[in-house]
């Protein structure tokens, strides 16, 4: 609903209402942006009331300004107020917000609109995961029987599944393109690069000038050296999302989000999976307690085995009647440990920034391992450690937090700044989710991180936990497996981190991430009411289970809610 709200704000005054902008298909995608859009404003609680009123007022004014057109730049000496290189989710988010703020905006795309997320990432993978979730459920006789349902052997058509993923990507890409066209963002086709200060080249030799430039070129799958990707038997997520085959046995190199989600897809479709993880533990980066539980549910009972503490030093694609060969070496001693023979290897070792050929040398910017260095306001830092004026970099290309919605939030933050309102994005309020079955989501610090911080800064840390087993809705769905965990300060009620593993965890995290972004304290939010019976009560229980020493703030809850 938020999406419809904020988008129609600018749109209703601009475009005919029959544009497919707010079609139901676009809703999930946009919902996410706009949830973040809220967070990105990050008001401090004390000023909340006044600043918000002000905000609404100013927004109205600017909407009408935008309505007067994306036609002329406010400063006549430039072609555009803002040029964004890269039309991924980050660039799109920035462009939409820029138009709303009255900037004449262009977006340059050398490939396809939507970038990684829409075409080769979050979006098609959600289509595959939707299939895998259903397969998993239908195959689970015990689960079905407990509902009193009888299902005869569930099967699938690989091409049909693959088509669902590509259709979804196309649909979302069109929605994205249309939403920008509708607002009058100029979509310039061609590879973009920076020629000099405030000057950008795109395509063969089109040069435009802009008051401010945002680099949002994103990333590509990272393939460690020694690994030969042939796109058939040794693949990256780009290939895997096309689902051209379902191998009997697939090795997944890397057990982060990407690897985990694909293991969910492949095992549901009948593959056996071998994880190869360089660190000593699977699922590094998750809260240890969550990753332990997740391993019990997502790894151990499935047809998955794993090798930890090893690098895949050499992977050769299948050829001449041989399977894919994977050489494993010890991550520490570099000694040869094992050789695996599998049908397919999926390289999910993370992503590398896509910053080559951007003309960064023209402005004396040196990348660090490919990432463009930026300060906390996404301003690009040059080789001498100085800020490059009017140049920003958002999203995967700066490597701060390689998530689509983080890029979008960073883009919005930049637009806020160039339109005269200083803004620093609180990255700790950005949620992350892994769409396995069940899902994993998190925001803020993990328990070890929080304890380290607490030690350094001298405050106490408490943990609250609730189980999905105690939730009526989860039990009704026969999905009682799950845990929600909150790390907080008992002295002032600040939420430091929330981690959820369970049914629809990815949707549940936002109550916590919004609370962190808005600075809402536990003693206040625990008084808020949740519909019964819903999964959201898991999070409600979490707030209620916390023991906070300070009393609820005096501001009446109803007034706060109205904000």
């Amino acid at each position, binding site marked *: 609903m938020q999406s419809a709200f904020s988008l129609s704000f600018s749109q209703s005054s601009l475009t005919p209402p029959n544009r497919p902008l707010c079609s139901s298909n676009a809703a999930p995608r946009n919902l996410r942006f706009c949830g973040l859009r809220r967070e990105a404003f990050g008001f401090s609680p004390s000023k909340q009331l006044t600043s918000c009123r002000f905000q609404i007022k100013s927004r109205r004014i600017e909407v009408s300004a935008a309505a007067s057109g994306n036609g002329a730049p406010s400063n006549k000496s430039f072609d555009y107020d803002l040029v964004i290189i890269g039309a991924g989710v980050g660039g799109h988010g920035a462009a939409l917000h820029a138009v709303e703020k009255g900037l004449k905006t262009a977006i340059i795309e050398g490939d396809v609109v939507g970038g990684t997320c829409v075409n080769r990432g979050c979006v098609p993978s959600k289509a595959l995961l939707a299939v895998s979730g259903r397969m998993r459920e239908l*195959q689970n006789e015990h689960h079905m029987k407990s509902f009193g349902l009888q299902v005869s*052997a*569930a099967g699938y058509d690989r091409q049909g599944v693959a088509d669902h993923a590509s259709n979804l990507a196309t649909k979302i890409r069109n929605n994205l393109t249309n939403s920008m066209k509708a607002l009058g963002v100029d979509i310039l086709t061609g590879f973009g690069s920076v020629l000099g200060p405030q000057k950008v080249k795109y395509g063969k030799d089109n040069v435009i000038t802009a008051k401010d430039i945002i680099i949002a070129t994103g990333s590509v799958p990272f393939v460690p050296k020694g690994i030969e990707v042939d796109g058939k038997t040794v693949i990256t997520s780009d290939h895997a999302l096309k689902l051209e085959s379902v191998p009997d*046995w697939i090795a997944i190199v890397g057990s982060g989000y990407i690897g985990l989600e694909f293991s969910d897809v492949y095992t549901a479709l009948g593959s*056996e999976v071998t994880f190869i993880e360089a660190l000593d533990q699977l699922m590094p980066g998750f809260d240890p*307690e969550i990753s332990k539980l997740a391993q019990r549910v997502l790894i*151990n009972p499935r*047809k998955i085995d794993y090798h930890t503490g090893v690098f895949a030093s050499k992977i050769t694609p299948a050829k001449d009647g041989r399977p894919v060969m994977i050489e494993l070496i010890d991550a520490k001693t570099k000694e040869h440990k094992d050789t695996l*023979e599998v049908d397919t290897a999926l390289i999910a070792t993370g992503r590398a920034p896509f910053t080559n050929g951007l003309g960064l040398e023209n402005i004396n910017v040196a990348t660090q391992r490919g990432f463009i260095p930026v300060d906390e306001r996404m301003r690009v830092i040059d080789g001498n450690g100085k800020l490059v004026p009017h140049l920003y970099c958002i999203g995967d290309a700066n490597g701060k937090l390689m998530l689509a919605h983080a890029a979008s939030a960073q883009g919005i933050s930049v637009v806020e700044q160039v339109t005269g309102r200083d803004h620093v994005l609180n990255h700790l309020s950005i949620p992350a989710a892994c769409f396995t079955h069940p899902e994993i989501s998190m925001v803020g610090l993990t328990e070890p991180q929080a304890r380290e911080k607490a030690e350094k800064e001298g405050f106490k840390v408490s943990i609250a936990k609730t189980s999905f087993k105690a939730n009526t809705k989860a039990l009704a769905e026969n999905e009682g497996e799950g*845990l929600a965990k909150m790390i907080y300060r008992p002295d002032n009620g600040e939420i430091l981190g929330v981690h959820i593993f369970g049914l629809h965890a990815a949707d549940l995290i936002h109550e916590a991430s919004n609370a962190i972004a808005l600075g809402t304290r536990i003693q206040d939010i625990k008084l808020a009411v949740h519909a019964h019976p819903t999964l959201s009560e898991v999070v409600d229980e979490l707030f209620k289970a916390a023991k906070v020493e300070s009393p609820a703030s005096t501001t009446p809850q109803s007034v706060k809610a109205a904000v």
Partner: protein
Amino acid sequence: MAVSSSILLPTPSLSNSKSTISFASSVSPSLRGVVVLRSPSSRRRATTVRSKIREIFMPALSSTMTEGKIVSWIKTEGEKLAKGESVVVVESDKADMDVETFYDGYLAAIVVGEGETAPVGAAIGLLAESEAEIEEAKNKAASSSSSAVVVPSPPPATSSPAPAIAQPSPPAAASDGPRKNIATPYAKKLAKQHRVDIESVAGTGPFGRITASDVEAAAGIAPSVTPPPSPPAAAAPTPTAKAKATTTTSSPPLLPDASIVPFTAMQSAVSKNMIESLSVPTFRVGYPVSTDALDALYEKVKAKGVTMTALLAKAAGMALAQHPVVNASCRDGKSFSYNSNINVAVAVSINGGLITPVLQDADKLDLYMLSQKWKELVGKARSKQLQPHEYNSGTFTLSNLGMFGVDRFDAILPPGQGTIMAVGASKPTVVADKDGFFSVKNKMLVNVTADHRIVYGADLAAFLQTFAKIVENPDSLTL
């Protein structure tokens, strides 16, 4: 072991995601490797009281647990332990649990360190009764630690369960000398679950790899009922394997109007146990037993409430006492345990189901008490009030279909037991004695099925001979 795996189904509580269970440790004399000595022997206990070093075993925390991982040792070596204190945190397939000690003493040595894994029942640490014994225990740990973390060793030759069926040789993947066995993740998982030594399985999958169906074949079980969906029209690189999978798993279509009746809990349990039995190599030995004397005895004691079941159970119990190997069981394919009690389970058909109430200490209890006990058990079975230990503690099973006129049959070995005896009807039979005189005697055929990993032909024959002697001279039964 005081920890009965069937009772403990750990459900970790949330506030503290660890539950606590206790382990019992058995006295293990300094002599290593002689399994028999682990069985309680009061005399030995008395004599070795000065040097009591107990082994702390990996407990079975759930019914499906085969091995556990040591999450952390709460106590350090040399630390004093009081009964009931948590000593170690063990991670099973289900949860993390604190394990506490039943005994006071000192944690003398840690045999399996943090992060390491040990099979259920393996020693993970040593408990010394006094400080003075810590050193001794440490030495013991040092000498045994190398063998403590058990690496699955190939089973003895007799148990090689892999049916040596001529398999179509897999597409030879570029013969480059000796290759190690490659097994798929699920194959490894199944092998562990069914205790199949993966090294002994012949791989028939693509590139000669060991697949789940190879392991299932080796374990002698039917392929799992939920096959991985095989994507239609996917360029199948392994036509043979795929074809095999589909032919074996697609059951014939149901006849119209056939009704599908889901298993009851009891039927599921029976089904599971029967499938499990297929992983045990069994053989059968039959023996005719004259029952004239037994029948005469039965007529005499019937009035006192003695049943034929009690008579047979008592006879079996007494014979078992003389042949402990027949009462032994083999759980892991690597060792066998002599059971300290002779518990005769008797198969009973109840309301279409099958249950095996257990006559505990059948060799020790007298006939009348056994009969009384049996009545009680049958009553409880009818009203579904049997406690788990009353139907799953058997060390030997007796199944009698003689009352239906069945003259001989063949029983399936229940999991965890070494032998089962199938008793046929006693029938008048013409027999010729050694002088060539014919006479008519009542004879019944008993047929014993045994686990050949631990019980050999001669063992069974000797046992049956003893059993026959007891039945043919049944006076000892009433003593």
